[in-house]
């Protein structure tokens, strides 16, 4: 099966009314059933694909995700930094989280930990 030929036949078939494609394809592919089957398969996929991959994926911050936590942590972070501490804040992935602990290590370089709400 020649991939270039499959592509060319697919493109040409798209220009035909749907009702004419089967007969046209049979004529073009006489003796080459593998090519005909592959082009027909792609045409069926084309008919069903519709919005498939028509919208780019996006990265979103959902309600209850780490961005709400970040909003809670920000004042605390500012307070610590104002007090001369170096803060390495991390934010939570999706899911409700609360800040339960601050751990101060040597050198006063706290890291904020978050635990699941109710946990």
């Amino acid at each position, binding site marked *: 099966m020649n991939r270039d030929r499959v592509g060319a036949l697919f493109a040409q078939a798209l220009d035909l009314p749907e009702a004419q494609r089967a007969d046209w394809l049979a004529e073009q592919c006489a003796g080459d059933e593998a090519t005909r089957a592959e082009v027909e398969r792609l*045409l069926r996929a*084309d008919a069903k694909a519709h919005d498939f991959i*028509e919208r780019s994926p*996006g*990265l979103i*911050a959902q309600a209850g995700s*780490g961005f709400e936590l970040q909003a809670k942590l920000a004042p605390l972070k500012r307070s610590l930094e104002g007090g001369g501490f170096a803060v390495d804040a991390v934010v939570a992935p999706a899911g409700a989280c609360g800040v339960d602990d601050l751990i101060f290590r040597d050198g006063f370089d706290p890291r904020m930990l978050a635990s699941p709400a109710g946990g």
Partner: protein
Amino acid sequence: MTDDVETLIEAARGGSAPAVQALFARVYDELKILARKQLAGAAASTLNTTALVHEAYLKLAKSDGRGLHGRVHFFALAAKAMRQIVIDHARARLTGKRGGGNVQWIDVEAASDLSGGELAPDELLRLDSALTRLGEDEPRLAQLVEMRFFGGLDLAEIALLQATSERTLNRDWRRAKAQLYVHLHPDV
């Protein structure tokens, strides 16, 4: 283009694999920085990948009217980098949280959720695999999908960048979509 980016693009066009890798790394890093900034913005709840790619271009390039071929390479690489970012997020989404017990170290990389349009994270990973296979057989079609789906460019923009007709690209797009659809839905 800024000098180093332009130099890398020229070297990449000349076939330098290290230049391609270095350029990809620059673009990838810039996209991640821009993504974090946008997602951390108080008013930003959704990251538009199209805007992100264009913003990365504006930041890394000087718009001086030259270097159309440079823009093609840039946007192709930026789309590839966005693909990697999106797929990494999809894997992280499926992997779930790390750590044990109730106290968890939380990774800023997983701080955003992923919307794949109509595709769930696992489907995005399957699409990624299918796209890799398509790239082995038909690299031009795979690049078109990267630029349109992951890079967010529309066919008119891609046609301009590649100096080809929209009609040709539309045919290629439908064929690429059909082939990827078949991979994800083999019983079609």
